[in-house]
């Protein structure tokens, strides 16, 4: 079939172009990778090379300790319970560059300090914090209440809290407690038994601390699994959307370059109709965007551990984006008279609308600050694509993604008809 032959030819050509490939896959991955190295590196290693703005953390340590929990007597700082250990860690010299810890007497005043913008983050350690560490069934909720404009520091503090529980408190202290309890019950485990207990504890607690902590933004954002991945998700999602629209235009641009190189005219000397040529090119562009997005999202999942949400939601987002990016490309290119004006389309048409559309990638999806941006974003098709992607990431189900998909569909129909009409007129 001629249409498919045109599609195949166009796709072969664009996947042979090093330049196109670099734009399609290289740049979005590179940008996300840079963020990953910058922030991921500082979270992962104590000696952070990257300097972040210092964040004030106000801690309300309500931990009442536990009768079963005893620290070794020789600690200088007079640490009584898990809450003390955690606050001690956070105010330690290693983190001094990142966070500055102050104290509040209760949860309310801690939150109020954030609301008054005296602190960026309020950390509320609950009364049963230590007990929860020891009694396997008990669950304590460490609350992180943060300024909505902050995107990064809450994630970092959260990671720190997890690490504290994980490494320092978890297995080692747990083992001490158990041994004490066993001794109280008249049992005295030998070294080998203690070791096997320790192993079991490490095994048991490895997943547990994460459930102890919930990250809560002022307006109550849904919990996210991995703050770094969530941040990278927004950035990579934004990049994917941004460059998908570029691909939509570069492939449609082949209409212009083929005209300039005479191959389009040559096509029209063969028994092939204008709709077939346009259709073949439209399909090629759509499929190219589809391939690009799938590859990028899969890479994001594999390399950066980003969770894009359930398959149907993501599929719908990709499909909608491919449609609207392609139609927008055809629309924009149809406005041009010569190949030379293409710079204008990319500069004004795609860069500016793209930036507006994916603005939420940079506000980190935090409510408040980005709600204005979010509303603005819906003035451009990229915004709808980004919103669909985020709805999928937030795990709000197909129903949340569907309106954005339909929005993209509407944009596509309008762009497609205007674009195709203008092209048909030009070649008639």
């Amino acid at each position, binding site marked *: 079939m*001629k249409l498919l*032959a045109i599609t195949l*030819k166009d796709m*072969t*050509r664009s996947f042979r172009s090093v330049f196109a490939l670099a734009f399609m896959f290289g740049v979005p991955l590179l940008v996300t990778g840079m963020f990953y190295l910058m922030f991921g590196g500082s979270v992962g290693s104590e000696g952070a090379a990257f300097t972040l703005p210092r964040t004030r953390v106000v801690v309300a340590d309500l931990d009442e300790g536990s009768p079963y929990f005893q620290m070794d007597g020789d600690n200088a700082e007079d640490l009584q319970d898990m809450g003390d250990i955690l606050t001690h860690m956070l105010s330690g010299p290693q983190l001094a560059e990142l966070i500055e810890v102050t104290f509040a007497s209760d949860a309310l005043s801690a939150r109020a300090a954030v609301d008054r913008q005296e602190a960026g983050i309020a950390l509320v350690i609950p009364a049963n914090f230590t007990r929860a560490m020891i009694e396997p069934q008990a669950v304590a909720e460490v609350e992180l209440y943060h300024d909505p404009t902050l995107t990064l520091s809450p994630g970092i503090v959260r990671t720190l809290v997890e690490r504290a529980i994980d490494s320092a408190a978890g297995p080692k202290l747990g083992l001490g407690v158990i041994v004490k309890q066993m001794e109280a019950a008249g049992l005295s485990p030998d070294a080998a038994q203690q070791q096997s207990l320790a192993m079991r504890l490490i095994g048991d607690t490895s997943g547990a601390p994460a459930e102890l902590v919930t990250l809560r933004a002022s307006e109550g954002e849904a919990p996210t699994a991995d703050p770094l991945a969530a941040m990278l998700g927004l950035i990579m999602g934004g990049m994917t959307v941004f460059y998908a629209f570029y691909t939509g235009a570069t492939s449609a641009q082949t209409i212009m370059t083929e005209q300039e*190189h*005479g*191959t389009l005219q*040559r096509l029209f*000397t063969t028994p092939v109709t204008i709709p077939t040529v346009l259709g073949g090119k439209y399909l090629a562009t759509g499929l190219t965007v589809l391939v690009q997005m799938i590859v990028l999202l899969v890479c994001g999942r594999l390399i950066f551990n980003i969770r894009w949400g359930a398959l149907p939601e993501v599929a719908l987002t990709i499909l909608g984006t491919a449609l609207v990016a392609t139609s927008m490309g055809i629309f924009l290119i149809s406005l041009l008279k010569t190949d030379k004006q293409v710079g204008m389309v990319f500069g004004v048409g795609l860069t500016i609308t793209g930036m507006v559309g994916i603005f939420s990638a940079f506000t980190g999806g935090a409510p408040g600050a980005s709600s204005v941006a979010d509303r603005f974003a819906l003035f451009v098709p990229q915004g709808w694509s980004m919103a669909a992607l985020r709805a999928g990431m937030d795990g709000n189900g197909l129903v949340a993604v569907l309106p954005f998909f339909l929005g993209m569909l509407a944009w596509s129909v309008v762009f497609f008809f205007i674009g195709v009409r203008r092209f048909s007129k030009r070649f008639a």
Partner: protein
Amino acid sequence: MTTNTSIEVRDLKKYFGPVKAVDGIDFKVQQGEIFSLLGPNGAGKTTTISMISCLLQPDSGEVLVMGHSTRSAAQQVKAAIGVVPQEIALYEDLSARENLTFWGKMYGMRGGMLKQRVDEVLELIGLTEHAARRSGKFSGGMKRRLNIGIALLHHPQVIIMDEPTVGIDPQSRRSILDGVRALNREGATVLYTTHYMEEAEELSNHIAIMDHGHLIALGTHAELIRLVGQQTRIDLTLNAENPAVLPAWQQVDGVSQVYAEDGHLSVLVNDSNAVLPHLFEAATTVDARITGIDIKEPNLEAVFLHLTGRALRDG
């Protein structure tokens, strides 16, 4: 129209704003012949061909190809013709074979038949060894040959070639001209445009000379030569410009026409031997000194000069 006419052009017109690119031309191309459209740059050759191959809508007039009107039966016309555009039109990031395969599909060919035909055409244009190379890496001559090969894939009844030998080395040019004749021997009708009169002379059964959108002459080579009455052209160069020499030569017996043409002067005569001495005498009377002479027996160049007062190659 008669059944053995391949292309019929009737009172064809195409204006681009003030430019009358094609201004009312008529001609017929018989089945199985090579028909040349000869004319200088800007004569309207490409515009004419574009209308025949359905790329441009005529402002008025009509084109029939194999009996099909370009207006009402464009698809049938397109299926019957193979067009070699003046500007090379290839996908440079595809190999020679990929190009041929793609264009073959555009002509509705497929499968084993297409593959076999692609091999045949590669052989025909001498690119079999380079079939897998990207055409962007080809030399100018190789690109030209591939540009032609694409138009031959579907065994078109009519092959339309727009200046297919422009800008290539003599060897490639030779092989293209031989190729055109071979295709013609196999039964294809060829419409060939050129501004090289030697090509038109060598190839064509009929030649139409085009200038400023008009056909100024049409016929066989012999018929056209007869138009200038077997006259010989003498090109003369002077040591310095001398406007008085033209009227002086015009007075010489046996001179039918005198033209000034950038740097040299041309004189049309019936018998160069008889006239030449008198040209020297006349030059002396006006103090002009002849430093160069070139005698040209009648050819299409002379026909063009005779009809337009200008040399063909300069437009």
